[in-house]
Every structure is written in C-alpha cells, then in structure tokens.
C-alpha cells in the first residue's frame, strides 16, 4: 500500500503528510509537481502550504501544475485523493471538488485546535470515523473561507458531500460551517484543517485529558488504507 504526497514549490506540510502515512502503516512516496509520474501509488495527498506563493489565488497555479493532469485523471478513475488546506484549495481550483475559497472573513491568519463534526463516514478517507463523531485537529489558514453558490450548497448538502463541519465556532466564515467536502463518488476529499498534524503523541492538539495527545488525524490515513486493501 503506497500513498503519494506531491510537493509543489511552496508546500510546507508535505513531510508531515509523508510521516503521517508511515505512522498509519503505509509506504509514503514523495512525488514532484513538475513530473508526469504518479509512480504507481494507490492514493494521493495534496499537502498544505502556499504553493507558488499562492499568487493569483490560493492553489490556482498549482492546480495547473504538470502532475495535475495525472492527478485529475486518476481521481476521475476513482483513486483516493486527499487535499489538505492548500491541497483543498487546489482540488477546488481543479474542479475535483465543488466550491472555492476566499480570504477568512476575520481577515487574518487563524491557527487553532479545531473541533469538527464528521458528517459523512463513507468516503475513502473517513471510514474509520463514526457519522456524527466530534474530532479535534489543528487548523491554520488565511484563505479558508469555503464558498459556493446557493444551488451548489443545496446539492452538496443533499448528496452527503459535506464531509466535515466546524463545531463550536466557524473560524473563517465558511458557508454552512463547511470544513471539508468530497466529490460525488467520495474518493476525493478536501478539508481545511490538518489531519497530518494529529497523528503522534506529544505533537497533536490538546485533548480533555492530556496535552498534545490528540490523534484523530491518524484515522484519515488508516481509513484509506482499509479502503484500498478491501
């Protein structure tokens, strides 16, 4: 079971994603934006960061990177793809998931341990969660406000494509408190918070019982391993 992580110029969390994949029990494979080669991986992660300086719009230039033609092709054939933060913005710009992102309504960068509601546990990346479960993973973004027109919001709500919702507070003004969405098929998931930062004791978010003990992010990766090996 091999999971690829694509590094773009300006990616920041690619190494954390590779590490999370290893901790979850799969083989991480480092991929490069400028090539046309997915190296036979079984699943893909588009990591967080500020690809190409986020010039033009967050994720916009990266969504046209050379490797993205292979990513779009693989995603349309059903390969599991997870876009985290900047990766979510890339997926939206590439139209692999609905919607778009603008600047946080509060204007500034927000970093916090964020409570999320798991709305759909049948996607390739969420089978290890229970529907309605509340999880905590870190959030850190400037352009995190998820937006779509009213018809699109109704459609993705009705289709169960809203995968995660912010709980307790909405950190960036996203429509319907939406934190993550999937494509119709459920193999492509994008979310603004960072599961790869909540996979290892001592480095995750605080929980009710222990500091930095949150490991909720690990189940994104164990979910996809289960899905691919099934």
């Amino acid at each position: 079971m091999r999971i690829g992580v694509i590094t773009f110029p300006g990616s920041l969390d690619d190494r954390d994603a590779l590490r999370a994949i290893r901790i979850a029990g799969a083989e991480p494979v480092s991929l490069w934006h400028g090539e046309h080669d997915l190296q036979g991986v079984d699943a893909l992660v588009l990591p967080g960061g500020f690809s190409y300086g986020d010039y033009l719009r967050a994720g916009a230039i990266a969504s046209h990177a050379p490797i993205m033609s292979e990513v779009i092709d693989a995603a349309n054939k059903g390969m599991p793809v997870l876009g985290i933060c900047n990766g979510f913005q890339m997926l939206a710009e590439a139209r692999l998931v609905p919607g778009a992102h603008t600047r946080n309504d509060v204007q500034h960068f927000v970093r916090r341990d964020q409570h999320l509601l798991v709305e759909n546990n049948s996607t390739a990346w969420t089978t290890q969660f229970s529907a309605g479960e509340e999880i905590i993973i870190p959030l850190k973004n400037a352009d995190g406000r998820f937006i779509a027109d009213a018809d699109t919001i109704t459609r993705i709500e009705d289709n169960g494509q809203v995968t995660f919702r912010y709980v307790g507070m909405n950190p960036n003004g996203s429509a319907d408190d939406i934190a993550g969405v999937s494509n119709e098929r459920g193999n492509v998931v994008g979310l603004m918070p960072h599961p790869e930062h909540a996979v290892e004791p001592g480095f995750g978010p605080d929980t009710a019982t222990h500091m930095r003990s949150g490991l909720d992010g690990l189940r994104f990766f164990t979910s996809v391993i289960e899905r691919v090996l099934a």
Partner: protein
Amino acid sequence: MPVFVVEVMPKPEILDPQGKAVAGALSRLGHSEFSAVRMGKRFEVTVDGPITDATRARLEEIAREILSNQVIEDVVSITEVTA
C-alpha cells in the same frame, strides 16, 4: 507592443474582507463619505505578434478559466491598450 488590461472583481454577493478593511480605515481617517470599497485585480498582459480574433478569443478564455475563478469572481473588462 500590444497590451491587454483584464479586470477581475469579486462577485457582488461575495463578502470582500479586504475592501471592507480598507473602507474601515478610510472611515477612521475621517473620509466617511467613502462608505464602501471593493477590491479586485488588474492584469496587464503583453502580446507578442499581431492581434487577431483568435488572440482575443484565447485571452477571453484565459481570463475566464485561469485569471478568474468563476465561483467567486467575474471578469468585468478586457481592454486593448497599445503601449
């Protein structure tokens, strides 16, 4: 060399926090008669070679597909300004 100016604005119904912050600053500086500001983008695109209908059509497509994101933005004008 021929230059095209492409102007892109956030859709009217989309909150523009940057414009809102500028409007707030103007108000604090005593310019309260300027009650609203919306911020967009201006692209100056230089063209090598002659301008044909195909050039214009391709630029319109680029403006719609790459320079703007139609979910959140509109291309409000494309103007030729020969430099």
